[in-house]
């Protein structure tokens, strides 16, 4: 009963596959494609494959667009969405790929079916199917974008925690952004690895780029200092801004176990003195 009702769509698609493809490509060109000839060729190939896979999906009389026979179609859409998401297409542009199929299919249905109610029925079934495929495209697009975002977050995490060697035996760790637990973990690990690699005995943690210091951030800082000390390296905390100094005291955070300096330059001089190195010139004289 159901299968016979929906048969028109299946038959029309099978009979006019080539025509629909041609119309669809025209429609896509009308809406506007971006890019060069190579991309257009690629688009033609994808369109042809997708239409073939829609036929394949419809073969079992499944017009829902969700059964196992649609696996190939979904695969093509997913790959398309993924590549478009990374190429910077907008979600509407990506979904339009599927939605632009409506017009040519409707045209064929209209010329094939004469009975008004059967035509309405076929239109409805087609709309449902194409909408569903379009939604799937958007979902796939979003998924890919989310993957990109989470990858960027990871990269940002690594980028924002560089450990630099300032001088023989002196490391600097300029922190940018808020310190949370996972960030502290990364900072701690990279600092300790660098201490082992360079054999440094002093690490300067510069918190100029840390917007706020609350008890939690202070605790994370102290943990990092303690871990570095266990490895045999002294830590100096520098770059404490006036407001942060006030906050630290108001919160009752105890930083008495750590050497603190207002600027990285001051901390560097202390570190030089402790390692027994010195810079010739006015710098030392001014500090003394």
């Amino acid at each position: 009963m159901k299968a016979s009702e929906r048969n028109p769509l299946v038959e029309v698609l099978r009979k006019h596959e080539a025509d629909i493809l041609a119309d669809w490509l025209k429609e896509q060109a009308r809406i506007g494609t971006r890019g060069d000839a190579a991309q257009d060729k690629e688009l033609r190939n994808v369109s042809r494959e997708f239409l073939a896979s829609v036929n394949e999906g419809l073969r079992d009389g499944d017009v829902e667009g969700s059964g196992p026979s649609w696996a190939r179609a979904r695969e093509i859409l997913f790959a398309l969405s993924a590549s478009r998401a990374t190429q910077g297409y907008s979600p509407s542009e990506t979904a339009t790929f599927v939605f632009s199929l409506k017009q040519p299919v409707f045209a064929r249905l209209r010329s094939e079916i004469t009975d008004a109610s059967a035509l309405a029925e076929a239109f409805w079934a087609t709309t449902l199917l194409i909408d569903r495929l379009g939604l799937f495209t958007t979902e796939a697009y979003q998924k890919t974008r989310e993957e990109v975002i989470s990858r960027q977050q990871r990269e940002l995490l690594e980028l924002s925690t560089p450990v630099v060697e300032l001088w023989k035996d002196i490391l600097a760790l300029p922190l940018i952004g808020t310190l949370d637990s996972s960030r502290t973990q990364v900072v701690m690990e990279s600092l300790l690895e660098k201490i082992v690699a360079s054999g440094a005995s002093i690490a300067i943690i510069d918190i100029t780029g840390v917007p706020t210091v609350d008890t939690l951030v202070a605790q994370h800082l102290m943990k990092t200092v303690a871990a570095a000390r266990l490895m045999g390296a002294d830590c100096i905390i520098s770059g404490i801004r006036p407001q942060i100094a006030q906050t630290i005291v108001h919160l009752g955070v105890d930083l008495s176990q750590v050497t603190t300096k207002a600027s990285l330059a001051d901390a560097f001089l202390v570190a030089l003195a402790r390692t027994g190195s010195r810079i010739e010139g006015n710098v030392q004289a001014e500090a003394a």
Partner: protein
Amino acid sequence: MERIPILRMGRFLLVTIQVDMHDQLALTLQDDLTERIVADRAKGVLIDISSLDVVDSFIGRMISNIAGMSRVLDAQTVVVGMRPAVAITLVELGLDLAGVRTALNVEKGMALLQNSTVA
């Protein structure tokens, strides 16, 4: 019975832990080391834990204890060669080994002992 060797280098004692530390071994080490500090009149103890890749709270406390005992016996303790993972674990366990001196490797630890016992 398994024992951790204690080597004498001048006025200092060198302990290199190269096997998995278990509780009984740690207790034996405590006994042996305190005996040796007294017998050799050592001024410093250097504990090399660079081969230790697993620590628990017991071992952490034991290291702390050894340092405390040595101090009472007038010998300084320096723990050297702690691995990054071990350091992070100890900090997360809340053991920051306060009062224990640390150095990156045996060489630096020796220099530290030399400097602090000369004065």
